[in-house]
């Protein structure tokens, strides 16, 4: 099996879906001849032409707005938002339009678009090239939200997102775009949305993460193991739909849970997970669910290592949770 990084896996999925289905269209800023500022669409315009791989004017609302029209007409539009931080000019089109189209029309107008966007910190991007806005979209009924951590999942979940009958926000962990390498099956790979991966089996505490932070969680779990703490690690992969069964099964077994995310803590997805765990595992819980997260500040430039919930802070939380 070939080894790829996440950029290559995304590129591979896009290419295969475009070959398979002539209605798949890619659009966004700099995605055409240039192949995207992260090169995720490199070579696509060369293969599929400027009619299906389109450089748009600089307006995220226009990118998503026109993608909606394409979807209503029957195409499978895959808009790219250059950085998740720049998704907000399209927020109204996503939250009031994409998410509600099927419902508001009584089922007459489905709107299956897949919005790809690199998210998260750790690349020295400061306030505006580092944000993790997943919670805002998970809070919006009608949207699905997917966030892979590995090249294999990036490929398989992106293909699934593009084929899905519902709109999907596909968050790509740019911090590990190139650093995360792994074997990826050649040819068609479609992984189901809504299934978490138990990437490490353990008994003492459940550690939940996704995207770039899954790598930190994985590291922390390994270090914890060296200290004799037996951690079960879940990579959520899809945040909406959520694999609640996997979470509940794990926490009922371990009795303890730590949730990790980059976004600010307050009203982040960690709060929702904490609430769900409590609702479903109340009688099994031996310690409060702990959140290891970004802080309630804008994302910083110089102090980004301090800001990010990396392995050392996760490890500390694991220790404290098992000793509660």
């Amino acid at each position, binding site marked *: 099996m070939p080894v790829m990084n996440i950029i290559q896996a995304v590129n591979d999925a896009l290419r295969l879906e475009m070959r398979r289905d002539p209605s798949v269209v890619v659009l966004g800023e700099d995605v055409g001849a240039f192949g995207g500022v992260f090169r995720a669409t490199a070579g696509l315009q060369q293969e599929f032409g400027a*009619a299906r791989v389109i450089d748009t004017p600089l307006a995220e609302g226009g990118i998503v*707005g026109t993608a909606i029209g394409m979807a209503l007409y029957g195409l499978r539009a895959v808009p790219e938002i250059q950085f998740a931080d720049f998704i907000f000019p399209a927020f109204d089109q996503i939250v009031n339009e994409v998410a509600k189209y099927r419902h508001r029309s009584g089922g007459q107008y489905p709107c299956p678009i897949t919005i790809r966007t690199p998210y998260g910190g750790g690349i020295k991007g400061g306030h505006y090239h580092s944000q993790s806005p997943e919670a805002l979209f998970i809070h919006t009924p009608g949207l699905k939200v997917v966030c892979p951590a590995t090249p294999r999942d990036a490929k398989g979940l992106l293909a699934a997102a593009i084929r899905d*009958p519902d709109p999907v926000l596909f968050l790509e962990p740019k911090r590990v775009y190139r650093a995360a390498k792994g074997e990826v099956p050649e040819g068609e790979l479609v992984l189901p949305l809504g299934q978490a991966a138990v990437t490490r089996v353990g008994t003492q505490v459940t550690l939940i993460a996704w995207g770039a932070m899954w790598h930190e969680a994985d590291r922390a779990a390994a270090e914890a193991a060296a200290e004799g703490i037996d951690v079960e690690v879940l990579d959520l992969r899809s945040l909406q739909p959520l694999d609640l069964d996997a979470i509940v099964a794990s926490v009922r077994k371990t009795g303890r849970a730590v949730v990790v995310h980059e976004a600010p803590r307050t009203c982040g997805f960690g709060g929702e997970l904490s609430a769900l765990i409590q609702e479903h595992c109340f009688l099994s819980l031996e310690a409060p669910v702990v959140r290891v997260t970004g802080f309630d500040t804008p994302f910083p430039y110089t102090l980004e290592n301090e800001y990010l919930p990396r392995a050392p802070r996760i490890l500390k939380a694991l220790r404290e949770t098992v000793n509660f």
Partner: protein
Amino acid sequence: MPRTKPKPRPPPPASRDGTARQWAPGRLPEEFPLHALVDEEGRLAQGAAVPVPDAELVALYRWMVLERQLDERMITLQRQGRIGFYVGSIGEEATVFGSAAAMAPQDWIFPSYREHGAAFLRGLPLEAFMCGLLGNAGDPGRGRQMPCHESWAPGRFVSISSPVATQLPQAVGVAWAARIRGDDVVPLVYFGDGSTSAHDFHTGLNFAAVQRLGVVFACRNNGWAISVPRERQTASETIAQKAIAYGMRGERVDGNDLLAVLDATRRARARAAAGEGPTLLEFVTYRLEGHSTSDDPRAYRPAEVVEPWKKKDPILRLRRLLQRRGLLDEAAAAALLEEVRVEIQAALRQAEAKPAKPPVESLFEDVYAVPMRQQVEQLAELREAMAADPRVANPRHVDGA
């Protein structure tokens, strides 16, 4: 397949004479006269031809009369508390029917919220529309949206959303998709003068022009955005001239002249289909009534300013034209009026006979193609709550007493 890429037009030459030239408002040459074919007395302009056969003209007159009667009846119904809200097009009927009638049957229509007339043209049954007003079990939109937010996919009439101007880039996307598919489909998208201030107006027109996509942008300039007059919405002398910012065609049309609207829209559609790109049409008209049944214009607009516009009534003008051409006499007009009244009344009776509420599970359907865990669990939760306490579904038991 996309048409050949437009060659970028060369910018004007440099002047190195040391004098500065700059465009100043007011210097715009008379590039945007009001296009009209019929005057207020119903006289056809010299040399002009009626762009549709007689029968279609009479049919369009009938639609406009029906729409007017419908609006008046529904406003009354709202006052009686039988429907919750209504937004009509009194005085603006020609902008809706003239433009919609100019499109081909396969074309898509993106409404703002005053254009249910276009949905009727596309086959939306009056009764289904009224079920939407009632939000009852007969509503094709399943009672999920406010009145006048209808969807009608069989007629390629797209679902309405309240946030203004969002439909503009969406319509552009349809034109784009049609080009990719190689289909002869042109979207017609409606919006008001106030909506030209919204950001999606800008992105919509810009994307269409850059890609030279065939879209008919139809602005119903009715002079008002709720209480805000057009002059406080934009400082440009016309809406049509905004086309210049996008390198697009623009035209100002008498929006109370059905024939002019039809003619201009038809030309815009033809250009769109020929790969010549989008057109911005400004239909100059007037909102004779309040913004909606939630609004009382007396709070911000003296009645006098409306008077001159009443004389320009588009239905009156068309009727005079028909009379002049011997297509409609007094008796026929009266019969037609009675006919549409009966039609409206019959549709209303049928609509009101439907169950008042869609089934409770309909709330949880269509959020996703297949309900997810939350929707399934929450429906069960709601059912259980309703079974335990009938007040859950009934406002009076809680709010009233």
